[in-house]
């Protein structure tokens, strides 16, 4: 079969798997919602403070939710041998891996986009910055999946890779966090945010093009 067949077969397979094990979709989303709803309770009746830290809260929660979901990216395939079969395919591994990452983003990143506006309103974020928040999430969450994939691929062969995974991946998430939450914050003051959005776009494109190669190389190492 052709490469595009294989590519879409893997996306389709991973989406079906996610639907059959619901917790994979529900866990990160529930975590995201819970953390954000806890902040107003912790901070108390200070709407202005809450409003000013809202971009940070939403983005930090999104980042941690993404981290939480990363392990599921290759774990089950590694455990049941499907990963071996994917690596043995004559199609380029990096593209098959990209298909898995896209499926992972559809399952764990996209749901955040749907609930984020609701939670933004809940934190008292001004309406003009909600659009920008969505844009940053749209550009940023795929980057979290792409960069995270490299880390998971490196640690999937280890029995307790959780801690190393976060140490590896979190520093690489920081630029996304800085530019995304800054864009949302600036947007609430009504100033233009082209610079931040452009930087996010370039990070996204770079991650999209560069991340699949180290991921497939790391998987080949892990499987040995």
């Amino acid at each position, binding site marked *: *079969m052709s490469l595009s*067949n*294989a590519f*879409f*077969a*893997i996306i389709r*397979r991973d989406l*079906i*798997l996610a639907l*059959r*094990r619901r917790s994979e979709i529900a866990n990160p989303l529930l975590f995201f919602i819970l953390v954000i709803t806890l902040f107003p309770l912790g901070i108390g009746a200070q709407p202005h403070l809450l409003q000013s830290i809202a971009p940070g809260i939403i983005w930090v929660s999104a980042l941690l939710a993404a981290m939480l979901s990363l392990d599921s990216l290759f774990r*089950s395939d590694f*455990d*049941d*041998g*499907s990963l*071996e*079969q*994917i*690596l*043995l*395919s*004559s*199609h380029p591994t990096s593209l*098959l891996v990209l298909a898995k990452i896209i499926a992972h983003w559809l399952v764990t990143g996209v749901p955040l986009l749907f609930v984020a506006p609701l939670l933004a309103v809940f934190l008292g974020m001004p309406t003009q910055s909600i659009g920008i928040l969505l844009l940053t999430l749209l550009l940023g969450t795929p980057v979290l999946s792409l960069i995270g994939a490299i880390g998971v691929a490196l640690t999937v062969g280890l029995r307790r890779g959780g801690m190393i995974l976060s140490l590896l991946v979190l520093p690489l998430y920081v630029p996304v966090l800085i530019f995304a939450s800054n864009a949302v914050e600036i947007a609430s003051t009504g100033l233009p945010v082209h610079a931040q959005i452009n930087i996010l776009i370039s990070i996204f494109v770079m991650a999209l093009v560069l991340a699949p190669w180290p991921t497939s190389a790391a998987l*080949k190492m892990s*499987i*040995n």
Partner: protein
Amino acid sequence: MRKQTFSLQGVDLSCIRDDRVLFEGLSFELRAGQVLLLEGKNASGKTSLLRILCGFREADAGQIKWCGEAINDSDYYVDMAYVGHLDGVKKELTVIENLKVSLALSQAGQYSIQQALVKVHLDDFDDALVQTLSAGQKRRLSLARLLITNKRLWILDEPFTSLDTAGIILIETLMTEHCASGGMIFLTSHHDLHLPDVDVHRILLS
């Protein structure tokens, strides 16, 4: 005519694991229509050799050649299939869904998915989730993967594990057919291989 040109060669292979030499200076050649049975006691490096052949591990010395070329420079991965200890099927997917993914990852072969399921006697289970199947049925499913794709070289690690007598005879028949049509098989097995019509070579690792 293409039959003669295909061969898998191992030249001077060695594998060292944790300072223990598993094998050294191992050479072999496998041609179309042949079976190579790898024998040896537990921990003698059978699975390690198979994983080296799959490219999962690097040999500590030596080279593997497919049709005379190093495996990474040739169409090796188009022509080889591996069934290992792990079944490589997703337990949350149905039998058909699993085979469709396997098919999408390689080239279609001699049998359609339905025909292959009839061959391995899983045709009544095509819509069953794999987690409801028994260990032997899962084994048959991962072997069905070999039938729906057009791989010339089968690398099988203990293919008879958890199969019943009928299952073993079935797989032996399929192996004989595969070799008759110009395929080749590299396998390890503790089970006595009964392939009267096939040119079986043996390597003993010690």
